[in-house]
C-alpha cells in the first residue's frame, strides 16, 4: 500500500469541518490493520478508518472522496465471504458497525426502519415482539449488519420459502458517489414509480452507492415449526425426494443437505449418532399453522419413504429439533479439524440439477486431489462446496484454485450461477464474463460508470481487472 497524499488531505479537510469526533477517525497502524480483512481471503490495510453515525457525515466524506479521487470501502462487521469490504486500493474504510441507533417497527404498516449498522438478527427479534418476522437468515445473522446484507443481497436457509434480502426491501436512503442524499422506493409493497433503483442498489456490493437507511418489509410470524431428519442410502434419491415434496405443494421453510463426507466429519469430531454409511442426509423444517404442519409432516415423510429414504425421524420437541440441527451446525468446526483453511463456495444450480452437480463435484475432488465436502440449501439449489486446505501449502492452494474454477464452470454449464448468496467481491470477479458474456458484463460496467464516474465506490470489486485470476494465496 502506498501512502496516498489525497487520503491525508481528505482526513485534514474532514477534521477541519469538526463534524466527526476524533475517536471515530482511526489512523494508528493497529487500528487500520484491524479493518484489512473480512471472512474471506485477502489483506489490504486502509489508510484511514472512519466510523460514521449519521447520513450527513457519510455525505461529507464521499463528497471529499469524489473530489480527491480517494477510494471508499463501506464495511459492516466484516463477515463477508467474498471480499466485499476489503480495501484493495487502500483509501478509506467506512465502518458502519457503530451506527445502529435506529431500529423501529411499525406494526400497522408491517415495516421496520433501520440504520445500516443494526445487527440482522436484532431486526427479527424486534419484529417477534409484534408476532412478525424478518425472514432473511444468513448464518452470520447474529453478527452481520443489515447494511452488509443489503449490499451483498444475503440469503440463508429460509430462502427457499421466503426469498432473500432483496425480497424484503421497500425503500432505501443512499448517498451517491457525488455525495447527494437520495431516497429510493418507499414504504409500500406496490410501487412502480420509475426505475426500481432500490433493487439495483441491493446486491450492488457498495459499488453504486452507500446505503444509510433501509425500510424493510415484515411478514406474520409462523405459529409453529416441525423439523425432520431424513437419511438416504443414495444421493440421487434424496434429489428425487426433494422434487416430490415440492410438487406435493409443500414449501419447507428450510431444506438442507449434508453429503457423506460432511456426516463423516461431524461424527469424527463430535459423535451425534448419525450413521456414516448413508450418502445423504436431509434436514427439513416446515412452518405454519400447528394443525397444517402435522398433516404436511406426514406427507413429507411419505414422499421421502416413497423415494428411497432409509429412515425419517420427526422431532417430537423443540429440544429434539435443535439436536437435529446440531449436526448441520457442527459441519464447519468439524471440517477445519483436519486443515485450517476453509474455502466456502456458494455456486447455485437449478434444483433438478443437484444430483448432477454432486456427481461433478466428486469428479473435481478426485481429479484435483482436494478435501471437499458438500452441504447447503438443497431446496433452492444453493450448495456450499467447502474445500479444506492449508493456506501455507502453496502447491495445494494452486490445486484448490484450479478446482474452484472448475466448480464455477460446472455450475454455469448446468444453468446455474457463480454465487447464490455470498457475492462476487474480489474472489469471483475473474469468472464474471463466463456467466454474463462480454456484452452482459459491459452493460453492468456502463451502469457502474454512470453512477460512479470516478470509480471511488468499492473499486476492485465485481469487475475483473485485466488478466485477473483467482488467487487464494497471500494477497
Amino acid at each position, binding site marked *: 500500500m502506498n501512502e496516498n497524499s489525497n487520503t491525508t488531505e481528505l482526513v485534514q479537510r474532514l477534521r477541519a469541518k469538526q463534524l466527526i469526533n476524533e475517536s471515530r477517525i*482511526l489512523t494508528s497502524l493497529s487500528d487500520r*490493520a484491524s479493518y484489512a480483512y473480512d471472512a474471506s481471503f485477502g489483506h489490504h490495510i486502509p489508510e484511514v478508518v472512519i466510523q460514521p453515525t449519521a447520513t450527513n457525515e457519510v455525505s461529507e466524506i464521499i463528497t471529499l472522496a469524489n473530489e480527491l479521487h480517494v477510494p471508499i470501502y463501506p464495511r459492516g462487521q466484516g463477515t463477508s465471504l467474498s471480499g466485499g469490504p476489503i480495501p484493495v486500493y487502500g483509501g478509506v474504510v467506512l465502518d458502519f458497525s457503530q451506527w445502529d441507533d435506529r431500529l423501529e417497527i411499525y406494526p400497522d404498516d408491517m415495516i421496520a426502519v433501520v440504520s445500516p449498522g443494526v445487527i440482522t438478527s436484532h431486526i427479527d427479534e424486534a419484529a417477534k415482539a409484534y408476532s412478525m418476522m424478518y425472514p432473511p437468515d444468513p448464518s*452470520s445473522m447474529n*453478527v452481520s449488519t443489515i447494511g452488509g446484507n443489503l449490499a451483498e443481497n444475503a440469503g440463508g436457509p429460509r430462502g427457499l420459502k421466503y426469498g432473500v434480502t432483496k425480497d424484503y426491501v421497500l425503500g432505501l436512503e443512499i448517498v451517491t458517489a457525488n455525495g447527494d442524499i437520495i431516497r429510493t422506493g418507499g414504504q409500500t409493497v406496490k410501487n412502480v414509480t420509475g426505475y426500481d433503483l432500490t433493487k439495483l442498489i441491493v446486491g450492488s456490493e457498495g459499488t453504486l452507492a452507500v446505503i444509510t437507511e433501509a425500510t424493510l418489509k415484515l411478514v406474520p410470524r409462523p405459529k409453529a415449526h416441525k423439523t425432520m431428519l431424513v437419511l438416504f442410502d443414495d444421493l440421487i434419491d434424496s434429489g428425487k425426494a426433494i422434487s416430490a415434496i415440492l410438487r406435493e405443494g409443500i414449501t419447507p421453510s428450510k431444506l438442507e443437505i449434508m453429503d457423506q463426507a460432511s456426516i463423516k466429519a461431524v461424527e469424527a469430531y463430535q459423535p451425534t449418532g448419525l450413521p456414516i454409511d448413508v450418502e445423504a442426509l436431509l434436514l427439513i423444517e416446515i412452518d405454519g399453522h400447528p394443525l397444517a404442519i402435522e398433516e404436511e409432516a406426514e406427507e413429507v415423510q411419505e414422499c421421502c419413504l416413497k423415494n428411497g429414504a432409509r429412515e425419517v425421524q420427526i422431532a417430537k420437541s423443540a429440544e429434539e429439533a435443535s439436536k437435529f440441527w446440531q449436526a448441520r451446525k457442527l459441519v464447519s468446526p468439524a471440517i477445519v479439524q483436519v486443515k485450517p483453511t476453509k474455502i466456502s463456495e456458494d455456486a447455485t444450480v437449478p434444483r433438478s440439477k443437484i444430483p448432477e452437480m454432486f456427481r461433478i463435484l466428486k469428479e473435481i475432488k478426485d481429479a484435483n486431489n482436494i478435501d471437499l465436502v458438500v452441504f447447503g440449501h438443497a431446496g433452492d439449489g444453493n450448495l456450499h462446496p467447502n474445500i479444506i486446505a492449508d493456506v501455507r501449502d502453496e502447491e495445494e492452494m494452486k490445486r484448490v484454485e484450479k478446482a474452484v474454477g472448475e466448480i464455477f464452470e460446472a455450475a454455469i454449464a448446468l444453468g446455474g450461477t457463480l454465487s447464490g448468496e455470498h457475492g462476487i467481491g474480489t474472489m469471483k470477479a475473474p469468472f464474471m464474463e463466463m456467466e454474463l458474456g462480454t456484452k452482459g458484463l459491459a452493460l453492468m460496467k456502463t451502469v457502474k460508470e454512470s453512477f460512479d464516474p470516478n470509480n471511488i465506490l468499492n473499486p476492485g470489486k465485481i469487475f475483473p481487472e485485466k488478466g485477473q485470476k483467482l488467487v487464494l494465496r497471500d494477497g
Partner: protein
Amino acid sequence: MVDKRLAYKETFDCVQCGYCLPACPTYQTMNKETHSPRGRINLVKMAAEGKISYDDLKEPIDMCLGCRACETACPTNVQYGSILESAKEVLRDETKRSKREQFIEHALFEKLLPHSSMLSIAKFGLFSYQRLPLQFVARKTGVLKAVLPKGMVAFESILPKAERSKEKKSNDEDAPPGTVKVAYFLGCLMDTMFSTINDQAIQLLRKAGVHVTVVKDQSCCGALQSHGGDFKTARQLAKKNIEAFENGSFDYIVSSIGGCGAMLVEYDHLLKDEPAWKERAERFAKKHADISIVLAQSELTYNHHVNHTAVYQPSCHMTHVQKNVDAPFELIAKVPGLNYVPMDKQDLCCGSAGIYNIVNYEASMDILDYKMPAVVSAKPDLIITTNPGCHLQMKMGVEREGLSHQIQVKHLVEVIAESCL
C-alpha cells in the same frame, strides 16, 4: 522470519468469521475491531510476521480482559487463550512497561501473593488498617490517593472487613471407606479478604459428608501472574501446588474461586513443555472441581429460607475455562425462599478480570457501566457471584449505581451456608 515465541500456528485456526465479536466485552465498549478477538488474533499474526511492531500490539493485548468468552462463541475452536498468553509473555520481554504497571505488579506479585509469610503480614496489615483510625486518617488526608493508582483508591473503599483468618484444619480422623475425599484449595486473595467464605465452604463440605483435607504448603495458583505475562513465576507456583497436593489420595481438589479454578485446570497446558511435570500436571488438573459441582452432587439439607430476589453473575473463568455452567444454577434452584431472576447480558464479563480493574481502571469501569443497567432492570436485592474479583467489582457496580443500601453481593457459598448451616 516468524517470531516463534508467539502462538503463530494457532492464529491460522481463525477463519475470521467474526462470530466472536458480539461475545467480546471490549469490542462492545471500545467500539473498534482492534479490541476484538478476531482483531487481536490478526495483530498477533502480523506481529509474528514482523508486519507490525510489538509496540503496535501492546495496547490491544493489554486491553483484553482474558475472559475467554470468545472461545465459547468460536465455531472453529480457536485456542484464543494460548494466543493471548504467548503475546503477553513476548510483550513482557519486548516492550517497556509503565512505572505504574511495574509498581502494581511488584506490589501484588512479588511481595504479596505467593509467599504465605508475606501474605499473613499483608493480611495483618490490611486487618489493622481497617480496624484502626488509620483508615479514617488516610481517607481524610488523601495519603492513599497520592500513593496508589486510581483503581486501587476506588477499590480501597469497598474492600471487605478482613477477618483474622482462622487456621483451617483438616478432618481429624481418616475418612471411612466410601466417603468422598477432597483437598481444599484456599487461594491467597480469598483467604485474605474472604476468609469466612473458605470457612463456610469447608463446613458445608463436611456437612455434606465429604472428608476435607487442607493441604499444607499450598501456594497461590499463579493466575494473576499469568494474566500479567509472568509465566515463569506462574510455572513455579504450579509446581509447588502439584507437589503439595499429590501426597494423598483425593477424589477432588476443590476450590471456591472461579479464577483460581480456571488456572488450576490449565496446569497441564501451562507445563506441557516440561516432560518431568506434564503428566503430574494432567493428573492435578483433572482432579480439580469447583465447590458448586461437589455440593450439587451431595445431599445437603436446605433448612432455612433465604428470602432474596437474586441475579447470578457467573465468573467468566468458571464458565469459559472450567466449563462449569450448570452446577451453580442447580444449587441456586435448591435454596428455599430464593427468587432467582435471569438477567440480560448475564454472560458478559463484569470487567474485574484479575487485576485488570486496577491496572486499566477506566476501561474496566466502562465495561461495568455497560453491564449494570441489565442488573438494575432485573430488580434484585442480591447479586450472587463465585469469584472474589467479580464480587468486589459487582460491589463497585452497585455503589456506582447508588444502590448499596438496596443490593447485597454474596458468594454462592455464603448463600448456601445461610440455608444449610
